[in-house]
């Protein structure tokens, strides 16, 4: 048992570190390091531009999408090399935020299902960040029930005509392309009538509207489709096989979400280490210590769970859905941590002006962002289902809509 690199890994790490040292945008390092949930921004620069520039630089030097084949813009690296890269990239990795969907979900789906000519055309600019991709699965009517989507695709000659609405599309407003899951046959049970496509987000009839979140920010969009036409050669997988195609995407989503999920604990521990309460230093208050200790072991438990997953990767094993625990634990925890951090300030905790941004503001941002974390990429409840079913082998929920034609499933609970 050790945390050491193999000689090969050490060599890779040294090469990566040297390149990063020489090339990373160091002027933003501090700011990126300090950013926490709900607040990754740069004071004096447009983070999108900085992110695109860094991605292009990486791609030019062969450091983008490391685990992708070289012919598609990657480096052909092993999974563990990818992890080592992420460790070395450190805070600069936060700049990759806008590419996570494209690299983590759209790319692998294209690789598995697109025609060879499309892969060669679309994947390298996706890897280099010159083109940004989004994923268009969720719909207002769907939610956790992704396969309950209603966006229609109807065949018209060599093209498909799309009508409907998607929601929770991360980064759609910055995206050039998207992968799109549609319903092509509403008369068969819901999982059987779906078909996947990729499309140009600049196509006529595509309208992107930002969603204002509960936190006030807008990380997501609604996307409306009105008679949008997609050529049939942009279909991914067979007609009616969209659900299987989407599973590839979603499995990749869970793998990319697992790592480095924010718990709020380091911020709270740091805060408590210097905070003076009414009757002395917070860190000497036994009630505070009890809270901190309980969160500390959750945070370290997640950290070393992720180390174990990396070790499995290093041995060529594939980490399982065990990874789902990261988001499940961290989502509620950051909400509790933020609530407690405000409580420690007393009435002043409510204030969040710029002058308080480093302290109260930071935890308020967490508090307001946390409800989203407990929902996005699978709610807490879906995560527990995944753990129970895929790890522990417990039965699935009773599926009343399993053999029902999609258009016969009720859509409203009351009246």
């Amino acid at each position, binding site marked *: 048992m050790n945390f050491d690199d193999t000689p090969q890994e050490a060599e890779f790490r040294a090469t990566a570190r040297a390149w990063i040292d020489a090339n990373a945008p160091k002027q933003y390092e501090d700011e990126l390091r300090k950013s926490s949930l709900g607040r990754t921004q740069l004071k004096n620069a447009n983070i999108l531009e900085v992110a695109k520039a860094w991605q292009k630089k990486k791609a030019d030097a062969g450091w983008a999408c490391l685990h992708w084949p070289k012919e598609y813009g990657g480096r052909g690296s092993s999974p563990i090399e990818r992890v080592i890269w992420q460790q070395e990239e450190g805070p600069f990795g936060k700049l990759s935020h806008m590419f996570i969907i494209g690299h983590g979900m759209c790319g692998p789906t294209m690789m598995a299902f697109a025609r060879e000519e499309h892969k060669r055309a679309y994947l390298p600019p996706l890897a280099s960040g010159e083109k940004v991709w989004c994923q268009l699965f969720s719909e207002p009517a769907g939610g956790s029930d992704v396969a*309950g989507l209603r966006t229609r695709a109807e065949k018209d000659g060599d093209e498909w005509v799309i009508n409907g609405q998607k929601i929770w599309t991360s980064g759609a407003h910055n995206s050039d392309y998207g992968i799109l899951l549609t319903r092509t046959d509403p008369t068969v049970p819901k999982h059987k009538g779906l078909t996947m496509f990729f499309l140009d987000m600049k196509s006529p009839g595509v309208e992107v509207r930002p969603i204002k979140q509960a936190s006030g920010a807008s990380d997501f969009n609604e996307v409306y489709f009105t008679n949008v036409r997609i050529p049939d050669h942009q279909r991914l997988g067979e007609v009616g096989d969209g659900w299987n195609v989407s599973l590839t995407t979603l499995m990749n989503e869970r793998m990319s979400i697992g790592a480095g999920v924010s718990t709020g604990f380091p911020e709270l521990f740091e805060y408590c280490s210097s905070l003076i309460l009414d009757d002395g230093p917070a860190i000497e208050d036994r009630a505070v210590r009890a809270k901190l200790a309980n969160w500390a072991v959750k945070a370290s438990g997640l950290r070393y769970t992720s180390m174990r997953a990396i070790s499995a990767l290093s041995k060529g094993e594939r980490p399982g859905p065990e990874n789902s625990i990261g988001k499940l634990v961290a989502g509620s925890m950051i909400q509790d941590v933020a*609530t407690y951090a405000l*409580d420690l*300030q*007393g009435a002043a905790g409510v204030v969040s002006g710029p002058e308080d941004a480093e302290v109260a503001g930071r935890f308020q941002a967490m508090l307001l962002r946390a*409800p989203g974390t407990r929902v996005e990429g699978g709610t807490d409840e879906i995560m527990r289902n995944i753990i129970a079913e895929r790890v522990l082998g417990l039965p699935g929920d009773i599926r009343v809509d399993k053999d029902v034609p999609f258009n016969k499933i009720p859509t409203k609970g009351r009246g």
Partner: protein
Amino acid sequence: MNFDFSDDQKQLRDQARKFLTEKCSPKAVRVVLDGRAPYDKALWKGLAEMGFLGVAIPEEFGGAGAGHLELCVIAEEMGRANAPVPFSSTVYLAAEALLIAGSDAQKKKWLPAIASGEAIGTLALFEGKGNPWPKNVKLTAANGVLNGVKKPVADGAIADFAVVAARTGSSGRENDISLFLVDLKGAGVEVKSLTNLDPTRGQAEISFKDCKAEPLGAAGDGWSILTQVLDRAAVLCAFEQVGGADRALEMGRDYALDRIAFGRQIGSFQAIKHMLADMYVSATLARSNSYYGAWALSTNAAELPEAAAAARISATQAFQHCAKNNIQVHGGMGFTWEFDCHMYYRRANAMALGLGSLTYWEDQLIDRMRKKNAA
């Protein structure tokens, strides 16, 4: 035994609910939430006309001369409606401080103005981080003028007057603190609005510079008056919180009934059902603790300090719990600005801090229980 509100009080509640349903829809709340108004003036005026602002103010001072139980049922409805008006600062804090310690002249000046909706009042107690302890009061009063800065002051930017806690001694004891009444429209007062977690209730920083002020209550009695004011406000706020918790629970329940996923009402999934059942449990415990607080408040019982702390803790937990999980029941939609869930989430988390932190009240409760046991 009749550990319940009377039929008249329940009628008053229905009346308040009806009024607020009409005049304080979520759409109306959003005008303030979105910063288009500092508070809902029309609603404030309406509340005055209904007699709700002065319900616990004696008739001789322009009120309805009912009692605190009547105020509790109205408070609950204000919480349900998430009303964007300075009700708690004016009615629970400023008016109660005047009722406890005001001279006849002071009462005559301010109480009728409160009841009629003409004057907004508040309590200026906090000075940055920390809880209600005498040592945290640093603003000084000497020779009839105040010097210092209060922050945060709830509804400070729209208030006409404030009850200000000031240091008048340095013995290190509670009687170093005295209360003052300050006309915030007068000289020596500078008010700055602060950004805050719950935009439907403003917070301000108020600087006093050689500001003229008149004593409220005897010199050195400030802390003892404040303690009574905070205990009363704890009970009244608990009713707002219970109202908010109930509304959040109701929203979650309704959504769970209406929303279909996997071909079923999502309320048929035990994960959702049991989440809602747990919300009901905490809302019920909070309600029962608050009723006890109401009884103690209305009878001015010796149990008030303990009952107020218990109501405060229980209602704070319940509102936070229900508001948080109401979002979770709603899933992604609950996390949109468009849905109303976050208004309750913001209010719940802001109210949890307004009279001092949960930790502070936990500490108070144990102290008070010990005192009772020792007595």
